[in-house]
C-alpha cells in the first residue's frame, strides 16, 4: 500500500502525541518538587468526555482546567474526527500493535456502529440524572488506567528483577553496567517505589480484550464501541473538511475494502465514521482522493441511529439513576470507604470522577487503590485510600493537583493538613499493649499532626496477677485527620491493630463525631 505525505504526517502526529502522553505519564510522579511542574493530566484536559462529566456534575464548569477539551470539540465541528486518527493514544496503540496482533478483515454488520452512539446517549442521559459512568468506557481513561494499574507496574517489576539478577549474580561486564545504569533508570524511567495495585490483572484483561478486538476488525473499538468516537462523530456532522470523491467510484471501489473505518459508501461519505487517517489519499490507484474545504453538493451519509434505538438508550439511562439510588448508603455499608483528601461529597465525587487513575499514579504513599465494589456498583476504579498498603503523606497535595474534573479539589498545603479523610480507631483485641501486655508506640511515633492525634497514656494494669505500669495509645478524635500512617506502620502482622474508618470526614455535610470525655 502506497503512503501519501498525509499518511506520513498522520503517523508522525500519532507517534509524537503518544510519546508526549507517555512522557507526561512518567512525569506523574513526585520528583522533589511539591508542585508538579508539568500539566501531567493533559490527556484528560483535552478529553471531551471528561468535560461532559464535569459539565453535567453539580457546580460550575471547570473552564480553567478543561478549556482544551472544548478546543478539541471545536476542531471536530470544523474538521471531523481528527482526534481519533491523529491524537488518541488508544487509537495509536491499536494502529501500532495491530500488525503484531494480526488483523481481521471480517465485514461486520453495519448495525454495530450504532452501539457507540447508544452507549454515549445512554451514559450521557444517566449522567444527567446523576449516575456518571462515562469514565468506564472513555478510551483515554481506559488507556491511562491500564497503563497505571497494570502495564507500568508490570514493567517496573520486570526491570527490577533484571537489575536484581545482575546485582545478586556477578556476571562479567553486565553486572557492572547494570549497577551503573540503575540510578538513571530509577530516577527517570522507573517508579521510585514498585507500584502495587489491587485491580492490575482485571484492568489488564479489559485492555487486552480491546487490543485483541483488532483480530476481529481493524479499529473495532473505535468504529463500534468507543463513546468518545460517538461524541466526536455527532459533532462532525457539519464539518467543512470534505473528501472528494465523496462516493465509491464506480470503476474501482478499492475504498470499500481498504478504508479502515468503512466510511466510503456508494451513496456518499460517512463523515461521522471517517477517522481522517488519510490512507485513501495514498492507496487510491487513480490518485483521485483529495481532502479540501467543502464546496458544492454534500453527499453526507449518516449512521441511521433509528429512533427506537435512541429512545431505548435514553430510557436505559433514565432507568439507571433510580435503580442505583435505591442502593444502601455506601459509607454506612462500608466504613472503610475512604476518599483522598480534597475529595468532594460522595455523590458528587462519583459524578465527577472519570476513573482516569491519575491520582493513583501520582500518589507518593501508594495508598490510593482502585475500588472494585467497595464504593458500590458504580464506584468501579474510583480511588480509595487503603492505609494498610500505604498512607497519605502529610505534606503532599499531588492527587488534587492532577485530578482533571475536580473530583479531588486541589488543596493548598495548610488546608490539606486540616482536611479530615477519616478517623483512626484502635482495635483493642489486636493492639499489643491491650492484647498482649507489651510496649508498643509505633502509631504514636508516626502520627504526623503537630499536636499528636495519638497519645500514650500510662495506666496501672493487672498482668498475670501483678500490677504493672504500661503505656496505651489513645486517639484524640478532634486532632486525627485519618492519614492512615498508623495503620500502615502498625507492626502487628496481618490486619492492623489500628484502622481508619470514614467517620467525621470533612466532605460530609455534617460531621457525626461524638465528643466525649476521652477526647
Amino acid at each position, binding site marked *: 500500500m502506497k503512503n501519501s505525505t498525509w499518511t506520513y504526517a498522520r503517523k508522525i502526529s500519532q507517534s509524537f502525541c503518544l510519546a508526549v502522553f507517555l512522557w507526561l505519564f512518567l512525569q506523574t510522579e*513526585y*520528583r522533589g518538587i511539591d508542585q508538579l511542574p508539568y500539566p501531567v493530566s493533559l490527556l484528560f484536559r483535552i478529553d471531551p468526555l471528561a468535560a461532559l462529566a464535569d459539565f453535567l456534575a453539580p457546580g460550575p464548569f471547570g473552564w480553567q482546567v478543561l478549556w482544551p477539551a472544548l478546543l478539541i470539540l471545536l476542531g471536530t465541528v470544523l474538521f471531523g474526527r481528527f482526534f481519533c486518527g491523529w491524537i488518541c493514544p488508544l487509537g495509536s496503540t491499536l494502529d501500532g500493535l495491530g500488525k503484531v496482533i494480526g488483523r481481521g478483515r471480517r465485514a461486520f454488520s453495519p448495525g454495530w456502529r450504532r452501539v457507540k452512539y447508544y452507549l454515549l446517549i445512554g451514559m450521557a442521559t444517566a449522567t444527567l440524572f446523576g449516575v456518571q459512568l462515562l469514565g468506564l468506557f472513555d478510551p483515554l481513561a481506559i488507556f491511562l488506567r491500564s497503563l497505571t494499574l497494570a502495564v507500568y507496574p508490570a514493567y517496573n517489576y520486570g526491570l527490577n528483577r533484571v537489575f536484581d539478577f545482575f546485582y545478586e549474580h556477578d556476571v562479567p561486564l553486565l553486572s557492572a553496567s547494570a549497577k551503573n545504569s540503575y540510578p538513571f533508570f530509577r530516577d527517570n524511567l522507573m517508579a521510585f517505589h514498585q507500584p502495587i495495585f489491587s485491580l492490575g490483572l482485571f484492568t489488564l484483561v479489559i485492555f487486552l480484550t480491546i487490543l485483541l478486538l483488532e483480530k476481529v476488525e481493524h479499529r473495532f473499538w473505535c468504529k463500534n464501541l468507543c463513546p468518545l468516537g460517538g461524541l466526536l462523530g455527532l459533532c462532525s456532522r457539519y464539518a467543512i473538511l470534505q473528501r472528494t470523491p465523496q462516493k465509491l467510484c464506480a470503476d474501482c471501489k478499492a475504498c470499500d475494502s481498504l478504508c479502515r473505518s468503512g466510511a466510503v459508501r456508494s451513496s456518499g461519505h460517512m463523515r461521522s465514521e471517517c477517522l481522517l487517517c488519510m490512507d485513501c489519499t495514498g492507496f487510491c490507484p487513480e490518485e483521485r482522493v483529495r481532502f479540501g474545504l467543502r464546496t458544492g453538493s454534500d453527499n453526507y451519509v449518516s449512521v441511521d441511529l433509528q429512533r427506537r434505538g435512541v429512545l431505548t438508550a435514553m430510557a436505559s439511562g433514565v432507568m439507571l439513576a433510580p435503580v442505583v439510588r435505591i442502593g444502601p448508603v455506601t459509607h454506612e455499608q462500608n466504613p472503610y470507604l475512604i476518599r483522598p483528601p480534597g475529595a468532594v461529597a460522595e455523590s458528587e465525587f462519583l459524578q465527577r470522577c472519570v476513573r482516569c487513575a491519575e491520582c493513583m499514579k501520582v500518589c507518593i*504513599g501508594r495508598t490510593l487503590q482502585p475500588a472494585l465494589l467497595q464504593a458500590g456498583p458504580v464506584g468501579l476504579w474510583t480511588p480509595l485510600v487503603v492505609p494498610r498498603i500505604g498512607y497519605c503523606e502529610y505534606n503532599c497535595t499531588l492527587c488534587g493537583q492532577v485530578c482533571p474534573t475536580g473530583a479531588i479539589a486541589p488543596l493548598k498545603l495548610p488546608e490539606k493538613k486540616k482536611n479530615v479523610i477519616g478517623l483512626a480507631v484502635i482495635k483493642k483485641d489486636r493492639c499489643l499493649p491491650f492484647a498482649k501486655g507489651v510496649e508498643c*508506640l*509505633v502509631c504514636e*511515633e508516626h502520627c*504526623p499532626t503537630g*499536636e499528636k492525634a495519638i497519645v500514650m497514656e500510662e495506666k496501672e494494669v493487672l498482668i498475670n496477677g501483678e500490677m504493672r505500669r504500661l503505656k496505651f495509645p489513645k486517639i484524640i478524635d478532634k486532632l486525627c485527620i485519618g492519614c492512615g500512617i498508623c495503620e500502615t506502620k502498625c*507492626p502487628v*502482622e496481618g490486619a492492623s491493630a489500628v484502622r481508619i474508618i470514614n467517620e467525621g470526614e470533612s466532605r460530609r455535610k455534617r460531621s457525626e463525631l461524638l465528643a466525649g470525655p476521652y477526647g
Partner: protein
Amino acid sequence: MTRIDRRTFIRQSIRTALATSAVGCLPALDLLALPALAADSPPLAVRKGKNVKQLVQETIGALGGIEQFVKSGEVVVVKPNIGWDRTVELAANTHPEVVTTLVELCLDAGAKQVRIFDRTCNDERRCYTQSGIRSAVEGLKSDRVSLEYMDRRAYKELAIKGGKAFDRWEFYMPVIEADRLINVPIAKHHSISKLTLGMKNLMGVIGGNRGRLHHQIAESLADIASVIHPDLTVIDATRILVANGPQGGRTEDVRNTETLIASPDMVAADAYATTLFGFKPEDVSTVVAAAQRGLGVMDLKKVRMV
C-alpha cells in the same frame, strides 16, 4: 582439548554448584557480630555555640580532630537522622550544617568516599529534601560525597551473638562494610524510650519490621548496638525536641540548646545527652541496657571530659 560428554558435563556442573553453595553457607558473616569492648575512660567533648559550623569544628577539635577517627583513603558512612518529612526548625532531623561540616572534615582528612543515608519513616525523597540535607550536601559539590537512597537489596540477615531480644536481624551491609561510621543523631523526646539519641539512630541502618523493636526497646537497641559500632557519635543538640517526638511538628516543642556532644563511646554520648532533658543516664533504659552489656560507659564520672 579433551571433549566431555553431556553426562560428565552435568555431573561436573552439579559438583561445582554444590561446592560453591557449601562455601557460601559458611557463617563467615556471623563473625562480624561480636560486641566491641568499651574503653575504660572514653573522651567526651561537649561544646556550646550559636555558629553551627564553628561548633562542630570545635567539638571535634576537642577530641583531637577528625584524624583520630578517619584516615586517608577510607570509606566513611555519615548517618544523620533524616527520618521525617520536617523542616529544620522543627527539630525532627539532624541539622544539615552539622552533617555537611562533619563531611567536610572527613574530606579534609582524606576520606576516599563519604556516604550519607537513612532509612526514613516518611517517603525518603520528601525527607531528604524537606530536611534541607539534600541541598546542603549538593552544595558541597564534591564527587566524593553521596547522599544515597538506601538500596533495598543491600540488607542482609546477620546473627547477633548474645542477643537478648533477637538472635538475628537484617542489617544494611554498606554500613557494616564501610571503614568508618559516624553516627549523627539529633536529641529528641520519645514516648517509649524516653529519648531518641545515638543508639536509636542506628535503627536507620537496619532492615525488617522495625516496629517490633519497640516491644523491648532497651534490649533490642542494645542488640543492634552489639553489631554496629560507630567510630564516632556526634549528638546534634543545637536544638532539641522536648515533646511530641520523635517527629515533632510544632516550634513550641523545640528548645534551642545550642549544644554539640561528641564521643567515640556512643553510650557515653547518649548518657550525657539525657542531662539536657533533665534526666539522669540511669533514667533512660536504652542507655542502661547498653552499659550493662559493656557496650559503653554510662557513668559520667568515669568519662574523660575534653
